């Protein structure tokens, strides 16, 4: 205890506008340990790391490195303090060799001739060797595998003298074999006295690699513990939190006819990866079906298939009793499916266009909106104005580029567009991601209104609270298929958490 912490963060707050990403976080890592920062997406792990690496600066709070209070203003400052970050997206120049990439950030990185470069290459090789990292220093980066590229990034921070190494979701891009290799390297780094902090949302990895574990949830730190004092079940519970706060949710009518029936759905995600395998689900009139699960377990692909954006390989899809023959967005739109995509600005909106044009996106073909190949501009403006009022979208004008609106107003606009079409079925993917509480609530209210009007909602979200608050039935997706299903009455946070972590056999254990 008399040895100072390698890093200590005290009462750290970070706000982005109205959104509190980190709320009064206390965090400490000891020298020479592998410390895992565990939490769902959006829990605030990456934000916390970014403040250590100088990408963001805390709104308030104090950071101590080796017991001294510091002020990290930039990545350069961080590096001077011995903090190196390996980002989820590698920052490498593909046409340069590994060694050149490593030398690139040096202050005196001006090309000094071949002999200088040779010396540098040797130095880099020596550093890599010392920590047991094998990298082909002379090969251009584009020829390297993802795992090798990551190793180059790690050697880069080591070469620059970092002894506190941050890795943001390091395994998200790796194959299982590569991940094992990474862990082996991280252990060697730890044994060499380096402090390693990594963020992840995968429980198994945490149990495998971490010495200590800090769990974050919704911007707060919920606990720090030693690995040998905890187990996956406890971590899962901490990660997803305790009972939800009571919400106003009117009892619905009994669900009606099936709107969406998918059977044995199998979807390829390119590169031979099967994103969705043998998945079956039904959504009926007047019910909200929630799909919980950690990101990357096939939810996005499922949503894309149901929106007509992605072809599927096996299984059948029936919407309102009619079977789909092939993927077609037009068919999806015309059969009354409304899609609130995962990343609204990436695929749901055209940021540089105004409000009217964005509202027209799904309905511009309708005779109300265009006739004889011509847009009915005056009528459309009036319609847009009424929607903006009805959904309380705050914008400077109807022609303001929507990328200038706040996230909440963008999402309101998107819902205005999708709800106004009076869809039979809405597929909402992470509908409240990145929204502040007020905006998230109005989104929830809209979903409940749809349900009250006898529409079906398929809610895909990583936010377990959200899924539990709103859904009539809950499904848990893991590894591309539904691993658990429960009604609202039987929903049990702990069990859902275990399903989400892929520990399917856990409920059985519990019973014994």
């Amino acid at each position: 205890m008399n040895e100072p912490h390698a890093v200590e963060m005290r009462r750290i707050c970070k706000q982005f506008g109205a959104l509190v990403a980190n709320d009064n976080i206390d965090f400490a890592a000891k020298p020479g340990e592998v410390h895992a920062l565990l939490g769902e997406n959006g829990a605030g792990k990456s934000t916390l790391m970014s403040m250590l690496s100088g990408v963001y600066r805390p709104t308030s709070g104090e950071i101590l490195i080796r017991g001294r209070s510091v002020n990290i203003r930039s990545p350069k400052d961080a590096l001077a303090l011995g903090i190196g970050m390996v980002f989820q997206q590698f920052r490498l120049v593909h046409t340069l060799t590994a060694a050149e990439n490593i030398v690139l950030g040096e202050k005196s990185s001006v090309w000094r001739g071949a002999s200088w470069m040779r010396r540098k290459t040797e130095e880099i090789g020596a550093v890599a060797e010392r920590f047991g990292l094998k990298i082909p220093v002379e090969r251009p980066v584009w020829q390297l595998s993802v795992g090798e590229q990551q190793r180059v990034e790690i050697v880069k921070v080591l070469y620059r003298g970092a002894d506190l190494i941050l890795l943001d979701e390091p395994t998200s891009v790796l194959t299982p074999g590569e991940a094992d290799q990474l862990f082996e390297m991280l252990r060697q780094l730890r044994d060499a006295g380096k402090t390693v902090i990594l963020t992840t949302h995968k429980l198994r990895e945490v149990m495998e690699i971490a010495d200590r574990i800090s769990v974050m949830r919704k911007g707060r730190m919920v606990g720090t513990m030693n690995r040998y004092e905890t187990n996956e079940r406890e971590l899962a519970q901490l990660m997803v939190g305790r009972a939800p706060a009571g919400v106003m949710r009117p009892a619905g009518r009994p669900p009606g006819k099936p709107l969406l029936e998918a059977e044995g759905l199998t979807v390829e995600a390119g590169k031979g990866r099967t994103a969705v395998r043998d998945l079956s689900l039904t959504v009926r009139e007047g019910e909200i079906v929630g799909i919980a699960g950690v990101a990357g377990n096939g939810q996005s692909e499922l949503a894309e298939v149901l929106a007509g954006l992605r072809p599927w390989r096996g299984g059948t899809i029936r919407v309102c009793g009619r079977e789909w023959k092939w993927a077609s967005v037009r068919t999806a739109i015309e059969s009354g499916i409304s899609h609130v995509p995962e990343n609204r600005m990436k695929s749901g909106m055209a940021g540089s266009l105004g409000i009217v044009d964005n509202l027209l996106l799904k309905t511009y073909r309708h005779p109300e909106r265009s006739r004889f190949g011509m847009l009915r501009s005056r009528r459309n403006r009036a319609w847009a104005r009424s929607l903006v009022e009805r959904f309380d979208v705050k914008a400077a004008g109807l022609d303001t580029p929507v990328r200038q609106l706040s996230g909440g107003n963008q999402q309101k606009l998107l819902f205005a567009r999708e709800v106004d079409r009076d869809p039979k079925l809405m597929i909402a993917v992470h509908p409240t991601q990145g929204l502040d509480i007020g905006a998230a609530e109005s989104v929830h209210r809209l979903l409940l209104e749809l349900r009250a009007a006898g529409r079906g909602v398929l809610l895909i979200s990583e936010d377990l609270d959200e899924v539990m608050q709103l859904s009539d039935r809950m499904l848990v997706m893991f590894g591309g298929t539904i691993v658990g299903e429960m009604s609202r009455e039987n929903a049990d946070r702990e069990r859902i958490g275990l399903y989400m972590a892929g520990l399917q056999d856990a409920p059985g254990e519990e019973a014994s």
Partner: protein
Amino acid sequence: MNGKAAAAGMDGDAGSARRRPAVPRLRFEFDPVRTGSPWWMPLAAVFAALAVCAVFIAAGGTDPLAVYKKMLTGAFGTRFGLTETLVKAIPLLLCGIGVSIAYRISFWNIGAEGQFLAGAMAATAVTIYMPDLPAVLALPLMTAAGIAAGGLWGLLTALPRAYFQVNELISSLMLNYIALLLLDYVVFGPWRDPGGLNFPGSPMFTADQSLPAFGSTRLHFGLVFALAAALLYAFTFRHTRWGYELRLIGANPEAARNAGISLNKHLLLVMLASGGLAGLAGMAEVSGVAHRLMYGISPGYGYTAIIVAWIARLHPVGLIVSAFLFGGLIVGGYSVQTLGLPSATSEMLQGAVLFFLIAGAAFGMIRIRRVR
């Protein structure tokens, strides 16, 4: 290493309290969301280009002001100059609108030159293989042939891009050279005027095969084509359903896909239109100005049109203005030859304008802020 890092940490800590810069430091932030090129950026680019070229002209021993004045009067000062400027503006405007349509959906068609030549050759083919048609048949047929050939030449870039992800920059540029060599082949070979004293050009068109001119000037009916095209371009993008689809694709192709719009289909349609307009320009040039197909029929209209389009920011009114100005630049370039300068002076100016335009667009996305 440890000690060094710790020392740096101390420094950073103390520095935060001490470092209050007397001179405000400026910070440059890349922010494409909230910034955009201001409206005066194209004008600034033109003036910057004039200033830089003035240095080169002066270095060559000529007074740059005299040169610019000569260019101005040569292009806009006389009735002859003005009509010549308009004559040059016609193909620039048609090709400029053509590339603008493609640029609206971020398809980088730099093949207007080839599409222009394809149109010119197709129109000439009508005169060669059907020499005796009356005007009412010959001219519409030549127009249709020009548009069709230009459009097909455009499709040659769009098809590989749509189905095999072939980079359109390269394919459209390469197709320019193919069109150019094809032109050389026909004017030196099969279509060479037997009575033309070995001049590399087709036989002169008959009056029935020539677009009518205004009065005694060289200004021809192509002007109507060009202005009508500008009008149609403006109307399509603002008011039609197709225009909306194209705007959507241009703003966010992913969102367009979400609206059920087929990107490939529109890519092909756009290139058909884009190439068609350039082809029409080629037809108007052979039928309205040269009255024959000949070696070097285009002094690079298709390339200049790219600058015309960017300086206009793809805006229809801007296109008309900039096509007129660049027409003047070409005509002015001819008139400075009397001062002993090559007509390439105007090409130098064109290049400089494009350079500053691109630089301006890049800087337009940077916001300058004082660091507190």
